[in-house]
């Protein structure tokens, strides 16, 4: 097991190098750089900037260096924890994104937990009582959840709570806490707001998970080992939870890795609608204004999270499934 984990971690290194090259290339792809955008903005507002000042800025940000030098400098700084400087905000990237990334991870984790807690029992019920009216009922709502875009659901919820409950549910904090330092009261306030994005982002995934669990479990319930367990004298509830459910959730465990980035990008649009202080809206504006260091750091950090998420799900999968742990192939 330990050898497996070490091997998996070594594989991560070339993956991350490749990701860094790709993210750097993507950031450099649009014509011009941040300063071109900056000059355009200035001239649009009627101000001018002389060439000498422009060259000084270009030199300060290292934009006059060859592209590979810029890349290595960026990577080297990144490894040391210096994420560079945001041109647009004129602040270190680190201070800009720290809290946002933390809140994004918090919302994603809560959403993931919510998704599992809700979808697992419903999926199991739907499979065990296949074609019962409750199965149809849950399937109906599952499909509605799956088909509704998150931002639309967010808008409806916003309107509903404002029109009928008389409260605004946007943001993650009440106004008095937004700028306040972290305290227990602020944490409680966060929890009060947190369920809304969790609910909105979670519904689509919950619906998808229910379908996957139901489908997998229906396959597993027909397997001979279920009959064997029944012939042993195990009670129905116990045998379903112990055997087919254990096998049926394996594929879901392996999806944790991709669920993380999906949740993060899924939050982006919802976050704009709900005015959440997460990473999505900031990443969007950074990309639009070619704020290279900010956008690059974001993409890199999200990619690292994805790679780590995949690692976690691989380790979990090896832990729950001995066939993977021992590198053996199932003989059919």
């Amino acid at each position, binding site marked *: 097991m330990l050898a497996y984990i070490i091997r998996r971690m070594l594989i991560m290194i070339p993956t991350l190098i490749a990701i860094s090259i790709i993210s750097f290339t993507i950031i450099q792809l649009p014509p011009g750089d941040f300063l071109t955008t900056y000059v355009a903005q200035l001239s649009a507002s009627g101000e001018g900037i002389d060439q000498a000042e422009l060259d000084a800025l270009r030199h300060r940000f290292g934009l006059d260096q060859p592209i590979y030098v810029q890349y290595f400098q960026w990577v080297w700084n990144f490894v040391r924890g210096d994420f560079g400087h945001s041109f647009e905000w004129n602040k270190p990237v680190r201070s800009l994104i720290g809290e946002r990334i933390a809140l994004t991870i918090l919302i994603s984790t809560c959403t993931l937990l919510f998704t599992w807690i809700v979808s697992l029992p419903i999926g199991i019920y739907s499979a065990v009582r296949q074609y019962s009216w409750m199965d149809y009922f849950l399937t109906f709502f599952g499909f509605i959840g799956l088909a509704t875009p998150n931002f639309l659901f967010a808008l409806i919820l916003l309107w509903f709570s404002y029109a009928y409950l008389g409260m605004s549910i946007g943001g993650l904090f009440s106004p008095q806490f937004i700028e306040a330092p972290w305290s227990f009261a602020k944490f409680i306030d966060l929890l009060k707001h947190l369920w809304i994005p969790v609910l909105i982002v979670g519904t689509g995934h919950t619906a998808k998970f229910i379908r996957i669990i139901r489908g997998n479990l229906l396959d597993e319930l027909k397997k001979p080992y279920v009959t064997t367990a029944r012939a*042993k004298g195990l009670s129905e509830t116990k045998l379903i939870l112990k055997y087919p459910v254990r096998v049926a959730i394996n594929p879901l465990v392996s999806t944790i890795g991709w669920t993380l980035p999906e949740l993060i990008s899924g939050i982006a649009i919802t976050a704009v609608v709900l005015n959440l202080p997460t990473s999505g809206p900031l990443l969007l504006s950074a990309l639009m204004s070619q704020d290279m260091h900010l956008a690059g750091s974001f993409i890199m950090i999200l990619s690292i999270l994805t790679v780590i998420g995949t690692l976690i799900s691989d380790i979990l999968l090896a832990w729950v499934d*001995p066939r993977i742990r*021992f590198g053996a192939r199932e003989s059919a």
Partner: protein
Amino acid sequence: MVPALDVRDLRVHFLLDEGTVRAVDGVSFSVEPGKTLGIVGESGSGKSVIGQSILRIVPSPGKIVRGEILLRMENGQGEPTQLDMAQIESHGRLARSIRGKEIAMIFQEPMNSFSPVHTVGSQIVEALRLHADVSPQEARNRTVEMLKKVGIPQPEHRIGAYPHELSGGMRQRAMIAMALVCNPRILIADEPTTALDVTIQAQIIDLLKKLQEEFGMAILFISHNLGVISEISHEVLVVYFGRVMEHAPVDVLFREALHPYTKALLRSVPGIDTPVRSHLATIEGTLPDPYANIPGCPFFGRCMECEGRTVCRDDPYSLTKVGPRHFVACPRICVADFA
């Protein structure tokens, strides 16, 4: 003497939207302790459903619509009583306390009959601890002992193995160990050798015979393989379309089978003296439509001996005694005024 298991007029029907499938339609037999009853039939003849209904694990929508499944129970005062398995609730506590404890079952697929993500040992220990009040250590010791009895080498080591780490034959041995760990009085073996190589088949049959001598359980051996049936059975039940066609001691059946279906089955088995490259004898035609309700002989139409006489089609099905312990359901033999 009260038999270990006495099945009377068992009828198991599957009520589907398309109609009723009479998977088991009036089957009676009994097994004594220490004896083996072979149940032989083609695929779809209902032989597996007989085994499942005794354990009360017939898959939905199958239902026992009639009949008795009388299980001999010792009440401790010497006088045995009979429990009708057909009458008890299939998911209830009583049924669960009998499954695995009094009646155990082994299955055809040694590949998939164990959960792939649990060790073989833990699944055997679970069976034992469900029915016996033993400590985990004691359960483990008894499991190792049982694995040794079924001929698994290095049982202390193999107890921690996952199913995919064992060969097919080893898995079937482990399956037998799991079925016998609670010392059941009846063992239902549903095609236990079908998925195995011929050499392994012979080993498993020998093992079952040896264990039967040691533990004295009654075995219900379900198979389509007449060779295997002749090896292990004391009596044989020939099943066709959910009904018993012929029921006889094994030597009688293989020496002087009476029913045309049994004879056709015996003819289709290749022998060592069958000429090379000659065509194997087959039974013409296929099983009747499963939804059909046939009052007479279900073999009518495929039978080579009745020559289309309508009495075979119309005379109601019945099993007639033709010799000591020899029963046959063939109007040509049993109907007095057959013309």
